[in-house]
């Protein structure tokens, strides 16, 4: 059964790609509208071979890494602070909800205006978009720790810091990481949108180039494939961290 469940996603992908390939050929769909998977695969390999993909991949990965880590760290800090302090939560929570309701991507032009079209604006978009899921999930997880366990810590004379370190954070771990998983994929979205707002390199820039000046639809799809790979890799890294950290917590 386990082998079957491992095979199923691959089998489904193979089936869908085959259907796509056959449909494009049977209906003679023009390549500039929808290229066949085999054409996209060839273009993907060419883009790697001639260095195009790597040139655009590096800035995007840099933005996702810096922005994701920065947003995650800030989200964790805000979430822990609000999770621990009822009064801070009452004051700040309405603004947090309001900020989350504002499409962060709409702030992109403002960030470019303030920070310029370089790396800083894109990192800021990534950081803002990742901050909220991490902050909210951390807040809830840290706040809702079992009251009995906290009473035990008080009976043992634990300080607030010790309760945080030995109980709240380990107990909140899965909640925090659930937020981090969402944030990991959102970070990629943030980077791509940030690159659309300006810049000369990045997978978002390559999308615009492939669609506009190059009119290279296979490259456009190859780029989309690359973006998906970056998103899945970011998600997988969070899962990896989850596994490694489960063996090392308190």
């Amino acid at each position, binding site marked *: 059964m386990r082998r079957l469940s491992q095979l199923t996603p691959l089998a489904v992908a193979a089936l869908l790609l085959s259907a796509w390939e056959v449909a494009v050929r049977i209906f003679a769909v023009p390549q500039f509208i929808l290229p066949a998977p085999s054409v996209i695969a060839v273009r993907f390999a060419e883009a790697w071979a001639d260095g195009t993909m790597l040139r655009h991949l590096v800035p995007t990965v840099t933005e996702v890494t810096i922005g994701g880590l920065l947003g995650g760290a800030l989200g964790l800090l805000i979430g822990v602070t609000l999770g621990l302090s009822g009064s801070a939560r009452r004051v700040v929570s309405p603004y947090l909800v309001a900020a989350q309701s504002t499409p962060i991507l709409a702030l992109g032009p403002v960030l470019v205006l303030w920070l310029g079209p370089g790396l800083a604006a894109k990192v800021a978009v990534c950081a803002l978009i990742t901050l909220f899921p991490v902050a909210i999930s951390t807040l809830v997880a840290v706040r809702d720790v079992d009251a009995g366990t906290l009473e*035990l810590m*008080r*009976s*043992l*004379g634990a300080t607030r810091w010790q309760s945080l370190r030995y109980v709240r954070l380990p107990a909140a*771990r899965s909640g925090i990481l659930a937020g981090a998983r969402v944030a990991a994929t959102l970070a990629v979205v943030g980077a791509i949108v940030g690159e659309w707002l300006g810049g000369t390199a990045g997978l978002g820039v390559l999308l615009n180039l492939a669609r506009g000046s190059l009119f290279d639809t296979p490259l456009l799809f190859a780029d989309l494939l690359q973006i998906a790979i970056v998103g899945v890799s970011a998600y997988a890294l969070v899962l990896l961290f989850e596994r490694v950290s489960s063996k090392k917590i*308190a």
Partner: protein
Amino acid sequence: MQILQVDGLSHSFGERDVLRNLSLSVAAGESVALLGANGSGKSTLLRLVAGLLTPTAGRIVLVGSAAAAGRPEVGIVFQESRLLPWRTVLRNVTLPLELEGVSLTSARATAEAALARVSAVGLLDRNPAELSGGERGRVALARALVRRPSLLLLDEPFAALDAITRARLDDELPELVAGAATLLVTHDVAEALLVADRVLVLGSDGAIQLEVPGLRGQPAAGRRAALLSPDGAARQTRLYAALNSVSHA
């Protein structure tokens, strides 16, 4: 020497008086069991002694000074084991020492000794999720004993266990806590008589209604027989009658 002295203790939750003018004492090495109806303030008393609550009125003197949360002279075992599921048994027991800044190496040795004392040394590397109810109870007891407290507060520690495991732990408890004074809260008359030197019944007005001598002084092998002897039966009858009266007061 008195380990615990409680004088004129009162406590209220909002408008509701839970304890009223309660006085009691526990001597070094003595075991006192507290019986009472639900809501009579038994668990509240333990929390006040542990410093987890501040009394509305009265005085609690613990080993010569006022009660405060986290004093190493006091160990507490709650009704639920409250083991941290992400820590092994050993690391659950080292926790109180780690909080005091004791090195992990030294804490491990002390924790192993505490686990050996409660016959749970074979569980060292297990996770709490892998333990039976009785094993969890033993580990929670080891955690409370690891700082070598002078007073052990037991809040219905075996209430959630099956009858056989509970009976076994009741039989062993006087020896397991050897040296420490204990204040046990329970609903079980037989348990109270088996593990305590004195059994107190707390009335619905939050004051002591009855005091009956327990069987802890008897040799371990003869305690259960003593419980069923005419004298033991008479003590049980008095306690049940008092509990019945306070429950309907």
